[in-house]
């Protein structure tokens, strides 16, 4: 039976839409993933050097152990937000003569096979080999790795339980986070000594492998709690936990009424973004785009003009890119309705354009304070703002008609969610490069500032021609709509 579950899950994963992209994109995603993983391994290999830099006279192993309790706490916190519960489609099995205990065990075991359990091992194992084996002994290293493995699994199951229990009450997790931060602060000022306790525990366990039985018993206990919790809730409505649904009051916004059907279409876009898990994630991500500058502007090495142009495009257009490239895929659920109904495509796209304008203008206004880092920053951001507003926006809308893949808006399984990020940035990379390509020849001629002017100028010119550009966008959409609809219908 387990084998059967496994093969179903494997098929579900490999046959999911996520992989049905072109080979090239899958390859690039895989490559990026590999690079990221190898960074972690490198971190594991060189963390002792880093620690020696910070604490020149401490024992690396002891210092490493002293942060582990905090690590486990933070890990739990991060998992709560990033990890999505494994949903196996139990509906398809519940009515069959399959023992419930088997299904539960499978759900739990599946939850232990997730990326959050693998990533720390990529750091821990190299560390154990390089430091513990050399400084202490192979046996101690082995016990230590076993302890780590047990604790990681422990966190994984604990979270599985907590997330099911408290999905509706993120406040509890907030309190938990506050406690961690408070303990860290108290620790820093030597009021409590959790870090000492942490290193004592882990050094002791590594030296006395017999006592590993204690964390192991805790692991069994946590597993048991999970098991009995699931066992009593083994119905379809309980197992796939969802937040309590409520209806929002977007409909009561009367502001858009005065714009007639265009207003109604804009409101539809807003509802689309707000009421679907997948699209809503871009709202959560938006602050990241805007804070990007804080990370880069203070850095002296990052003051290259070409680089600042890139940052400007990213900050004033980041939200637009996320919205723009998916604006049709997000409609895949009801795309037939859009093209069969008496909807004026011109207006349909104008509503989308108004959404784009709003995000770009708001982003621009919010990035104005970066003038603190010099007027250069403001000028470049203004030029890139105009370029986003007038030119890239239309380019995005033009290429949105190339969407062919259906998107399930309700699902945001961790897998989908992350894949979305990576592939999505690769596809829009050319958009970022375009303004820099415009600037490069001016730079080579020794008049880089003219290049920045040119970027802004192109934005203004295309803004002036927005009506004709819109016609081109809509015309392409009308030519492609059958292909798009066909793609969206296949799921």
């Amino acid at each position: 039976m387990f084998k059967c579950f496994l093969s179903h899950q494997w098929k579900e994963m490999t046959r999911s839409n996520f992989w049905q992209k072109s080979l090239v994109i899958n390859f690039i995603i895989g490559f990026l993933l590999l690079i990221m993983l190898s960074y972690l391994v490198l971190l594991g290999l060189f963390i002792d050097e880093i620690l020696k830099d910070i604490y020149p006279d401490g024992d690396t192993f002891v210092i490493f152990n002293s942060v582990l309790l905090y690590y486990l706490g933070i890990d739990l916190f991060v998992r709560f937000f990033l990890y999505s519960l494994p949903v196996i489609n139990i509906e398809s099995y519940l009515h069959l003569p399959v023992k419930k205990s088997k299904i539960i065990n499978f759900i739990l075991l599946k939850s232990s096979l997730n990326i959050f359990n693998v990533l720390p091992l990529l750091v821990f194992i190299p560390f154990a080999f390089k430091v513990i084996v050399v400084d202490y002994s192979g046996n101690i290293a082995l016990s230590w790795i076993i302890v780590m493995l047990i604790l990681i699994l422990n966190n994984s199951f604990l979270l599985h339980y907590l997330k099911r229990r408290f999905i509706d009450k993120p406040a509890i997790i907030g309190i938990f986070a506050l406690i961690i931060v408070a303990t860290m602060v108290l620790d820093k000022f030597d009021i409590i000594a959790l870090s000492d306790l942490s290193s004592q525990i882990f050094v002791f366990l590594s030296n006395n492998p017999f006592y590993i039985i204690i964390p192991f018993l805790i692991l069994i206990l946590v597993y048991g709690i999970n098991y009995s919790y699931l066992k009593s809730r083994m119905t379809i409505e309980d197992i796939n936990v969802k937040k309590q649904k409520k209806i929002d009051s977007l409909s009561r916004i009367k502001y858009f009424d005065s714009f007639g059907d265009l207003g109604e279409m804009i409101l539809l876009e807003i509802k689309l973004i707000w009421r679907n898990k997948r699209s809503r994630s871009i709202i959560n991500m938006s602050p990241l785009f805007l804070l990007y500058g804080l990370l880069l502007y203070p850095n002296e090495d990052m003051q290259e003009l070409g680089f600042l142009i890139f940052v400007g495009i990213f900050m004033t257009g980041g939200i637009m890119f996320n919205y723009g490239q998916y604006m049709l895929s997000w409609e895949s659920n009801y795309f037939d309705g859009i093209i069969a109904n008496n909807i004026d495509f011109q207006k349909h796209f104008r509503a989308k354009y108004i959404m784009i304008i709003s995000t770009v203008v708001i982003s621009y206004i919010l990035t104005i304070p970066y003038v603190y880092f010099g007027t250069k920053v403001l000028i470049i951001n203004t030029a890139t703002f105009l370029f986003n507003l007038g030119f890239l926006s239309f380019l995005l809308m033009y290429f949105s008609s190339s969407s062919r893949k259906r998107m399930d808006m309700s699902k945001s399984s961790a897998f989908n969610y992350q894949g979305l990020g990576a592939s999505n940035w690769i596809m829009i990379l050319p958009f970022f490069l375009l303004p820099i390509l415009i600037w490069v020849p001016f730079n080579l001629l020794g008049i880089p500032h003219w290049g920045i002017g040119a970027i802004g100028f192109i934005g203004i010119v295309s803004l002036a021609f927005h009506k004709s550009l819109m016609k081109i966008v809509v015309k392409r959409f009308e030519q492609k709509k059958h292909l798009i609809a066909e793609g969206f219908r296949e799921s």
Partner: protein
Amino acid sequence: MIEVKNLAKAYNGTVVLNIPELKIEKGESFGLVGNNGAGKTTFFRLILDLIKANKGEIYSKGIDVKKTTDWKSYTGSYIDEGFLIDFLTPEEYFDFIASVNNLSKGDVKKFLDQFGDFFNGEILGKKKYIRELSRGNKQKVGIAASLITDPEILVLDEPFASLDPSTQIRLKNLLKQLQQEKNVTMLISSHDLNHVTEVCERIVILDKGNMIHNIKTSSDTLKELESYFAV
């Protein structure tokens, strides 16, 4: 009202629909029956310009449907859940459809008032998004939305499927009423031979994309259909 000429649609080289000629007069109610894969939905999608034909044309009031979108203003349709904007409440959806058709919110209210029975208290004021409705209730929303513009042509793909018995009967009555009072041209497909013979004046059997029978409905039609589909 609707005229089909040399229509053919193929997927990957397999012909799924082939209608050399077909005319549907104004006010006629046209029923389409056939087993799964017979091409019913494909035909309706072609009429609504949702897919492209490999060959041939469909004329609505004498105008090729793929050339202009004028026909949309007098055609109401519901094929499947792909028509419903699932994150809206039914009320919001009706408002949206009305607004793109330049109807006022007052018009919508007047229209929905007539649908009290049909909705059976399960659609309006429930504070639910369409995606949370049951299949049958979604179907009701879709059918109602197709009628909101007071269309001259109505295209419904298996409207009786997944409706409860009372609603099926109400829908039958509603369709008959639309024929009699407003002379609406109807294209309806169904797996339920009973319903379709009751509602439609003309019935066409599709089999693997070909029109097999083209019958004016009479008292014998149901028997005829049953014997055709009997295995």
